[in-house]
Structures are given as structure tokens and as C-alpha cells.
């Protein structure tokens, strides 16, 4: 287990290096740069600015400096907001995205497990048909449409009661978080429901379940201890990629609900060609996702003894 962990961590570090390098190459092959705006016609000013951001050095030297700074965890200064360090932007806005993401993952996982188990228990009966229809809808409707429609729904709900029951946009209190995290988690929840249903259907008539039944165990105990515990395993495996999907899906939800998260900043930076912010957030997000996947895999090893043998 220890060797496996170390191996995965080394792999993770190499992956992050790969991400950082790919980001560097991609960003330096962009036609045009943030300094080629309309105002900076003066050659001298331009040269000074290039010197400040180190753009006048040879590309390989730039790469070495960049990698050196990255390993020290220094992402540099923003190009468009000149007195803001990228680290500060991340420190300020990532907690917002993380809160939203964690809520969405919790909601998606709980919902997925619950609905999936329910549909399997009521296979081909009304609850199954209704939930699976909703699931297919949840997989097929893009998140920005869901986000827009839920905002529309909130507006009319608030108008109906005459008071603001749930805020339509913004961030701050727990009430602000409910609808965006529901919207963000919806697609993943639909996907997890499908997965949970099929794995539950496999388990539902397994031999050990029949044995448990013939021993005379109460149905709730069979459901909780035998069926649910076994059926949940595939859901945990995909939680890593699901976290990735939810984090990047957060861009849209943050944009629509005006949430000051890192995703919104990233989109903004991309539109303004803010080199350092793009590189910083990409590497940060990339590293975060890579280690989340590793973490989920390791946790999986603890939960399922069969995997620990490797």
C-alpha cells in the first residue's frame, strides 16, 4: 500500500510537470500578447514592460524561470491587474469555488446513491420510470440552460411570494449557495444515479444477498449492510473524475449566478489574455484535480479490501 501510494504520488508530480509544460508551450505560441494593446505604442515603454515580466529573455530561460517559480509556488503578477499577485487571486477566490464544488459533489453523490438505489429497488415500476426519465433529462440538458432556467424560476418564485425567498444571484450566505450547487451537481448526480442503478441491479440478487435473506436478516439491514455497501464501490471510483467535471463545470455556474469564484476569474483572464493568471490557474487547477483523483483512488483502497492487493 505504501509503495503504491508513493508510486501514485510520483506519477502525480510528473503529470503536474507535464501540465505546467504544456501550459507554458500553449501560452507562448499565442499570436499576440497582453502588451500589444493599443495604448503601448512607445518602444521604450514596451521594452521596460517586457523586462519587468521577463519576456525579453530567450524562451528556454523563460521556461526555467517559470518552472523555478512554480516549484516555489509563486505564480507571478497579473498582467491586467498590475498590483495583484496570482497567488492572492487564487487564495481569495478558490475557497469560494471549493465551497461551491464541495457542496455540489456532496449533493451529487448523496442524490446519486439514493436515487440509484431507489430505482434499482423499484425496477420497472413507477418510481424507476420517473427517476430514470429525469436522469436522462439531466444528462441531456446543458448546465447553462439549467442555470438560466433555475434563475428564471427563482425570479418568478420570489415574485409570487412577494419576498426574496432565495437569492437569484450573488454569494455570501448559505442561502446563496443552495441553488448554484444544486445546478452544478445535477449532471453528475444524473450520471451517478445511472451508475448506482446498474451496480445495484447486479448486487440485488447476488448469492450473498440470498444467503443473508435466508438467514432471516431484516430487509433494512440487508439493504444497508450488504447491498448498499457493495453497490457503492463503482460510484466512489468515478468520484475523482466527477470532482474534475464539477470544478470545471463551475465556470458556467459562477458566470451565470455571478459568484466570485476562481472559475469566473479564469474565464475573464482567458478573454483578456492575462498570461500569468491563465498559467497560474491552469496549473493550480490541474494539480488540484490530479491529486484529487489520486486521493479518491487511495480512499477506494481503504474501503474495498480487494483493491488493496493491487
Amino acid at each position: 500500500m505504501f509503495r503504491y501510494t508513493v508510486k501514485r504520488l510520483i506519477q502525480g508530480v510528473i503529470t503536474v510537470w507535464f501540465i505546467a509544460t504544456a501550459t507554458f508551450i500553449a501560452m507562448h505560441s499565442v499570436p499576440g500578447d497582453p502588451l500589444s494593446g493599443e495604448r503601448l505604442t512607445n518602444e521604450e515603454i514596451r521594452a521596460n514592460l517586457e523586462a519587468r515580466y521577463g519576456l525579453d529573455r530567450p524562451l528556454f530561460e523563460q521556461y526555467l524561470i517559470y518552472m523555478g517559480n512554480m516549484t516555489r509556488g509563486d505564480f507571478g503578477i497579473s498582467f491586467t491587474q498590475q498590483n495583484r499577485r496570482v497567488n492572492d487571486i487564487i487564495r481569495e477566490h478558490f475557497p469560494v469555488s471549493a465551497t461551491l464544488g464541495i457542496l455540489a459533489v456532496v449533493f451529487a453523490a448523496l442524490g446519486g446513491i439514493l436515487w440509484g438505489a431507489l430505482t434499482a429497488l423499484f425496477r420497472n415500476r413507477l418510481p424507476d420510470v420517473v427517476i430514470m426519465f429525469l436522469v436522462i433529462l439531466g444528462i441531456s440538458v446543458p448546465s447553462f440552460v439549467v442555470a438560466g432556467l433555475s434563475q428564471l424560476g427563482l425570479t418568478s418564485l420570489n415574485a409570487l411570494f412577494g419576498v426574496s425567498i432565495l437569492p437569484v444571484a450573488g454569494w455570501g450566505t448559505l442561502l446563496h449557495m443552495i441553488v448554484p450547487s444544486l445546478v452544478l451537481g445535477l449532471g453528475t448526480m444524473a450520471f451517478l444515479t445511472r451508475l448506482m442503478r446498474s451496480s445495484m441491479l447486479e448486487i440485488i440478487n447476488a448469492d450473498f444477498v440470498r444467503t443473508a435473506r435466508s438467514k432471516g436478516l431484516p430487509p433494512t439491514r440487508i439493504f444497508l449492510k450488504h447491498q448498499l455497501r457493495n453497490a457503492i464501490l463503482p460510484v466512489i471510483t468515478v468520484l475523482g473524475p466527477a470532482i474534475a467535471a464539477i470544478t470545471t463545470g463551475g465556470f458556467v455556474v459562477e458566470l451565470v449566478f455571478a459568484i466570485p469564484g476562481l472559475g469566473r476569474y479564469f474565464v475573464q483572464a482567458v478573454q483578456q489574455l492575462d498570461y500569468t493568471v491563465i498559467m497560474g490557474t491552469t496549473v493550480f487547477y490541474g494539480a488540484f484535480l490530479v491529486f484529487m483523483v489520486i486521493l479518491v483512488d487511495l480512499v477506494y483502497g481503504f474501503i474495498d479490501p480487494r483493491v488493496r492487493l493491487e
Partner: protein
Amino acid sequence: MSTAAFEFGPGDFERVAIERRTQTLSRPSVSYWQDAWRRLKDNRRALISLWIVIALAFFTLAGPLLWRVDPAAQDLDQVSQAPGLPQVAVIVEPYVPWAGLRATPLAAPAGGPGAAAGAGMPTDAAPTGLRLVEPATTQAVRLAWDPVPGATGYQLYRNIYDTEPDGALGLPVAEILDPAQVSFEDRLDLEAVPYWYSVVALDANGAEADGYVTLRVETSRVISAAEAETLGWIDDAAAVAIGDEIVLPYHPLGTDYLGRDMLSRLMYGARVSLFIGVVAPLLFVVVGIVYGSAAGFIGGRVDQLLMRFADFVVALPFLLFMILFKIAFGIGPGESGIFPMLVALVLLAWPATARLVRGQVLQIREEGYIGASQLLGAKTTYLVLRHMIPNTMGVILVTLTFAVPSVIFTEAFLSFIGMGVAPPTPSWGSMSNEGLRTMLTHPHELIFPAIFISVTVLAFNLLGDGLRDALDVRMRGQE
């Protein structure tokens, strides 16, 4: 017994046909694809999805040939038009300037404290008798009202919503500083919708009174013959008479916020969305097949190396790198940005297919018929082309079908955050993005592209489920 010698010649013998009765096929044999088709036909959901996909292909390919409306052409007379029947306009005389109505200004009510005109106007004085001088048209709305005693002028407002609930008067359209002028002609960008006009009296200091009067005006769409000819709605201005009704350019699904035809934009948008949705999976599946079969077939260290690289590409955060690559390739002026998106998709999405094909190849390599083929002297290329690829085709087809909706989603997502196709090229994603801004007032601009994305994704997902059940022997029966 006759002693005549028997002479046997070759003609006395006949070849006996080899007959093996141990096994007979009494039914025509069914190939893998025939069997798969039979299974697919029994799956009602998959079959309906297949029809939807065919209908979408027709909509995309033949649609623009049947509905010849330029998706970039702006019909400024019908901006944000809701879907419905064709709009008609009545031919009227060309516009004639109007002098307006004048009235003698009334002095302040007797007993008012101020000596100057208007100084004594009560602060809640409201004009009365707001009326239409002639029927309101999109050419002009001519209003008149009774003079307010003591007023020095009037302020006019126009609203496209009812002013009643919260007293919002809307857009200030005119300030009349002549107390004798008690009429107003509105010609500002009139559309065939109801308007709420309000008039407020101004006191001696030019400040507005609290009272106001509102009139709901229904304008009818009219146009002069000459104008209609200029816009190309009719061929000959002389051929129509005053009072004739002419039909405006028809937009069955309405228009967007720039007056562009929704149906035409949806068709051209389908070209972009479906083109990327179909071509990108095809390309990266081909790359994946080549890469995966090479790795699986060569094996050993090369395989290890190739697959490690694939692992790294898989670990890249997909959407982040889609955005990065999109910026890196850049979009020149006048380009639609479809090509950079295709390249980025192919660069990032191939490893999944490569892994799958490699697994399949490793498995098939051990099969008996491969050994037999090798014994008969088959070369590697022959083995790959004749045995490996056809045998993995089912799995690949399923991957392809599931890749289509995810690529369509990716395109829509990128276009939504403004990183997709460049305007004015329509795509369903960018149309949704534009529609979201006018969602509250003109929901059809969001709902149509959203429905198209959802139905397409749904159809491909269900078709993929059906194909998997029909083609993938091991997945059969699972849900």
C-alpha cells in the same frame, strides 16, 4: 456367366460428391452486423433516436437549401420577434409632417400664490384628456391632451410595459417647453406592440409634477409603398394600392435580438454543432485506433512508453486545455474558429479510444484464428486490417456514438463562455449564450437552441445505449 471381357473406361466411373450430413444449416446464416441490426430494430427507444438523428441530418443538410434565408441578415423591422404567423403591414400614404395642436395656455388657478404663469400649478396636477388624434401606426403616433392650468411645459414618457403596478413611466421621449403645445408626435423606432404613453406637466421651474396620465396605444404595422419597395418586400410600388395588406418576410421561429431569422440560424448552427460533433469524434477515434493498435500489436517497451504518454494526456484537465489550445491557435479575422476547436479536441480526446483499442487488440491477439492466420503466412498489416479492426469495430462504433453528445456539449460550453466559434457564425451554444441575456423578455431565443442541443444529445445517448446492447456482446443485458 459371359466370358466377354469387361473393359472399364474412365466414362464408367463417376465422381461421388462428398456429402457430410453431420451438420446442416437449415436457416440462412446471420452475420454479426445483421444480428446487431436485428437487435437494434427491436429496441424502440434506439430506433426513435435513430430517426431523430436522421431528421437532424436532414434539417442540417437540406434545411438551408429549402429555407433560403441568410442567417446573418438582420431584419430590423422585426427584432426579437416571437415565433408565430407571418406579420402583415398595411400600405399607407407616405409620411406627411404634422404641425400639431396648439392651445391657449391656461393661467394658474385663481387664488394661486404666484404671479408668474405656472408658479401656482398644484404639484399633483395631472393632464387630462390624453387621446390619439388619429389611429396609431408604426409610422407615427399622434397624441394630444388638454392643457394644464399653470403648466410651463410637458414631459412625455413611453413604456413597453404597463405603467400601473409601480408607476414606472419608461423612456422619456420628449420634453416640450412650450405651454401652448398640447400635442406630440412620436416617430421613434416604433414597433407593432402596445405602448403606454404618459404625460407629466412641468411647473415654472421646469420640475415635473407628481401627477400623470397614461394612455395605452396599440400601434398597427403600416408602411408606405415606396419604403416597402426599398426594403424588397414588394417588387413594384405602383402595383399596390393604399390599404392593401402585404406580408413581411416570414420568421416561423421568430428572430433574435439583432433581428436575425431563428430558423435559419438554427440550421446553420446545426451545421457547426453537428459538424464538430461528428467530425471530431471520427478524427480522434481514427487517431486512437492507429495509436492503440500500434501499442497493442508491438507490445513490450514501446507499448509501455506509448501508454504512459496516453496516461499523461488523460490526466490533463480537459476543458482547461480546450480553452488553452483554443487561445494558442488563435482565430484570425473572418475565421469561424471551427478548425482550431477540431484540432484541440483531437489533441485531447484520443487517449480513451487508444486505451480501448489497445485492450481489444491485446485480447484478440491471443485468439485462435489469429494464430491460424499467422500460420498461413498472413502479414502484420493484413492481420490488423482483416482481423483486428473489424473485430473491434463494434466497440469503436459504440465509443463513437457516445463521443458525439459529449463533443456537442463541449462545443456548446466553449461557445457559451465565448471561447467557441467566433460571431457571426451561429452555433447552438453561442445562440444559447445570446438567448440567456434576453431570457426574461424573449424566452424563445434561449429555448429553441437549448431544445435542439438537448434533443440531439438525448438522441445520441439513447442511440449509443441501443448500439451498445446490439453490438457489444459482453455488455449485453447490462443496464
